[in-house]
C-alpha cells in the first residue's frame, strides 16, 4: 500500500475510474496538460489522452451543461470546478438541470455525474477562493454532497461518487490536500455515501464536523481527554444524505452535541443537524446543542481568515459550555 496525501488519493481514484470504465471522462479548466491547478489530475492527460481528460474553455455553465449532455448520452463525466467559489455560473445548470433531471424525466435521463470542487479557507488563497457554500447544494433536492477529510476516505468516497447513479457534489477541503499521508490501497474500494465516520469514541459529548474542521475538532477532543472529558468525534462526511442513525445514536449516548463548520452560521448545514438532533434525541439532551461556525459575514480576504475560521479555542469553549450547562 502506498502512503498518499488527500490530493494524491483523489488522483488515484480518478486513475482507477478511467482505467476500469471507458465511459468515464474528466472535464474542466486546466485539468489536462497542466494536471489541474492543485495537481488533482496530474499524469492522467498523458496517460488517457485528450478525449478523456479534457481541457475545456473557461466556462463553468458550459462545462456543467455539456457534462449533463454527456451523462444522459452514456458517459460518466467527472467535472472539476476549479474552486467552489467559481461554481456560480454553473449553478443554474446544477440546480435547474442536474439535480432534477431524474425527477423531470421520471428516471429516463438521470444526470449521472460527479462535480469535484476544492473549497474552504486556511490556505491564504486570493479573494473568493475560500468560500464554504455546501449548504447551497445540500438545500438542492436531487443532489448528493460528500466531503472527505482523510486520504483513505477521499479515494473511497470519490469512487463511490463516480459509480453512484445520481449527481454527486464532491467537495475537497483544500487545507487538507497535503496535510497528512496515510495508507491508501492501490485497488478500487468504496466508502459508502450516506455513512458518517466515528473518528474517536467518547461518552460525554459528541462533536460533529466535516472537511478541514475534522482535525481541528479532533485536536480539541484530545485536549479535553487530558482533563478527563471524553469526546466522541464524528466526521459527518456525507452531508446529503445524512447518516442520521450514527449521529442520533451518538448524541443519545452522550446527551451533548457541538457542531463545527467553517461556513457562515445562519442556515448552515449545522442548523439542519441541530434540528435533526432535537427532533430525534430531545429527551436525551442534557444541554442546548452548540454550533461553532464562521460568522455571518462575507468570507474575508486572507488577512482575517484566521479570525473567521473556527479554531481550537472556539471549539473548546463550546465544549466547556455544553459540559457546564
Amino acid at each position, binding site marked *: 500500500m502506498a502512503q498518499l496525501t488527500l490530493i494524491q488519493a483523489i488522483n488515484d481514484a480518478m486513475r482507477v475510474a478511467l482505467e476500469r470504465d471507458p465511459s468515464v471522462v474528466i472535464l474542466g479548466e486546466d485539468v489536462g496538460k497542466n494536471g489541474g491547478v492543485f495537481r488533482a489530475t496530474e499524469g492522467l492527460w498523458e496517460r488517457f489522452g485528450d478525449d478523456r481528460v479534457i*481541457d475545456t474553455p*473557461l*466556462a463553468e455553465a458550459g462545462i456543467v451543461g455539456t457534462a449533463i449532455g454527456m451523462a444522459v448520452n452514456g458517459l460518466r463525466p467527472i467535472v472539476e470546478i476549479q474552486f467552489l*467559489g467559481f461554481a456560480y*455560473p454553473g449553478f443554474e445548470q446544477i440546480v435547474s438541470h442536474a439535480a432534477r433531471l431524474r425527477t423531470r424525466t421520471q428516471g429516463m435521463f438521470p444526470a449521472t455525474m460527479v462535480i469535484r470542487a476544492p473549497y474552504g479557507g486556511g490556505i491564504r488563497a*486570493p479573494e473568493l477562493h475560500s468560500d464554504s457554500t455546501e449548504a447551497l447544494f445540500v438545500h438542492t433536492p436531487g443532489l448528493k454532497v460528500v466531503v472527505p477529510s482523510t486520504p483513505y476516505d477521499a479515494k473511497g468516497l470519490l469512487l463511490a461518487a463516480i459509480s453512484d447513479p445520481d449527481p454527486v457534489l464532491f467537495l475537497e477541503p483544500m487545507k487538507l490536500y497535503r496535510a497528512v499521508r496515510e495508507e491508501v490501497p492501490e485497488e478500487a474500494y468504496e466508502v459508502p455515501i450516506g455513512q458518517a465516520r466515528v473518528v474517536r469514541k467518547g461518552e460525554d459529548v459528541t462533536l460533529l464536523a466535516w472537511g478541514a474542521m475534522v482535525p481541528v475538532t479532533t485536536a480539541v477532543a484530545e485536549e479535553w481527554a487530558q482533563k478527563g472529558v471524553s469526546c466522541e468525534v464524528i466526521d459527518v462526511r456525507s452531508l446529503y444524505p445524512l447518516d442520521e442513525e450514527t449521529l442520533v445514536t451518538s448524541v443519545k449516548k452522550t446527551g451533548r452535541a457541538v457542531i463545527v463548520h467553517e461556513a457562515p452560521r445562519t442556515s448552515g448545514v449545522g442548523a439542519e443537524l441541530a434540528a435533526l438532533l432535537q427532533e430525534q434525541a430531545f429527551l436525551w439532551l442534557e444541554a442546548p446543542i452548540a454550533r461553532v461556525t464562521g*460568522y455571518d*459575514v462575507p468570507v474575508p480576504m486572507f488577512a*482575517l481568515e484566521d479570525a473567521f475560521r473556527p479554531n481550537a479555542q472556539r471549539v473548546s469553549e463550546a465544549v466547556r459550555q455544553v459540559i457546564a450547562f
Partner: protein
Amino acid sequence: MLRQMEKVGLQYLQPDGTLTPEGEVAWKPIERPLKIEFYKWMRKIRLFDQRAVILQRQGRIGTYAPLQGQEAAQVGSALALNREDWIFPSYREHGVAMIAGMPLKQILLYWMGRVEGCRPPEGVKLFPPAVPIATQIPHAAGAAWASKLKGEPSVAVAYFGDGATSEGDFHEGLNFAGVFRLPVIFFCQNNQYAISVPFSRQTATETVAEKAAAYAIRGVRVDGNDVLAVYTVMNEAVERARTGEGATLIEAVTYRHGAHTTADDAGRYREQEEAREWVELRDPLTRYRKLLEAEGLWSEAEERDWEACCKQEIEEAVRAAESAEAPPASHLFAHVFADLPPSLVRQREPLLRQEEEK
C-alpha cells in the same frame, strides 16, 4: 502555438523600435510629455511587478498575479481615459489601477489579503478586481448605460483576458452594449493562455475581435505590445463612445512573461522557445525605449534616474503597507450591512471583548 499569433493586429511600432508609415502619422501629433509618460509608466509598472513577485517569494504578500509583458496594453489604454471614466478591472490590471490613481500601498495591501486594497481613493472610479472571470463585463455595460441615461459624457471600460471570452457574462455584456448602444469599451488583453489553456482551446475563431460582429459593435485587433497603437485604438474607441457611436471590443494581442500567478508554473504548459521569443523579441518596453532614444527623448541617464525614483517610491509603499496596523478580528463585521442586525452584533460581541482585554 507560436504561429497562432502571427497576426498581432494593428501595429504602429515594430518590435525593432521603428515606426510603420501609419505609425509615423500617429506619432507626430502626440505631445512630447505624453510620449515620455508612456515609457515612464511602463517602466514603473514593470519595476513594481518584479518587486511584487519577490515579495511573494519572501512570504511578505500572498499569491500575486504578475503582469510583466502586458505593460503596453495597460498603459496605452489607461492613458486614453479621463478621471470621470469608469474602470472595471480583472486581477491583473495593477498597471491600469496605478494610472487611475490607486496608491501603490493599497495595491500591495490587496495582495496581502487586506480588504482596504479594494477601495480606491475618493473620486477614482475604479472597481475592485473582479476575481470571478468575466463578471466585470456586464458591470461596465451597466455603468456605461447609467452614464448614457443620465446624459453624462463618461465611458466605462472592462478589462479582461482571453479566457473570459468563453464565459456567458462576456456574451451577455456585449449583447447589451450592442442593443442599447452603450458607451463602453471591452478591452481584452489576449495573452494567449487562460492559466494553462491556450487560446485555441477557448475559441475556434482566429481572433477575439471578430466576435464583436455578433453583437453589432465594433471590433479591433491591435498589437498589445505596441503602446502607440493601443493608445490610438483606445482613443478612437473612447471618442466613439463619448459621441454616441456605441461600444468597441478591443483585442490587444500580448503575452504574460511570467506565470498566471505566483502559485502557477508556466513551464508545465508553455514552450520555452515561445516564451523566449515573446520576452526577448517582442517586449513592449524594449521597442518603445528604442523609439524614444532614436527620437532623442530618452537617455541612459534618464533611465537610471527614473528607475531610482520608482524604486524609492515602491520601497516606501512596501514599508507603508507592511507597517499598516493589522486589522482586528472584529473588522470582519465592518460594512457587512449599513446597520449591523442584532444577530451580527451578538456574533461580534466576544471578539470585541477579547480585543478590549488585549
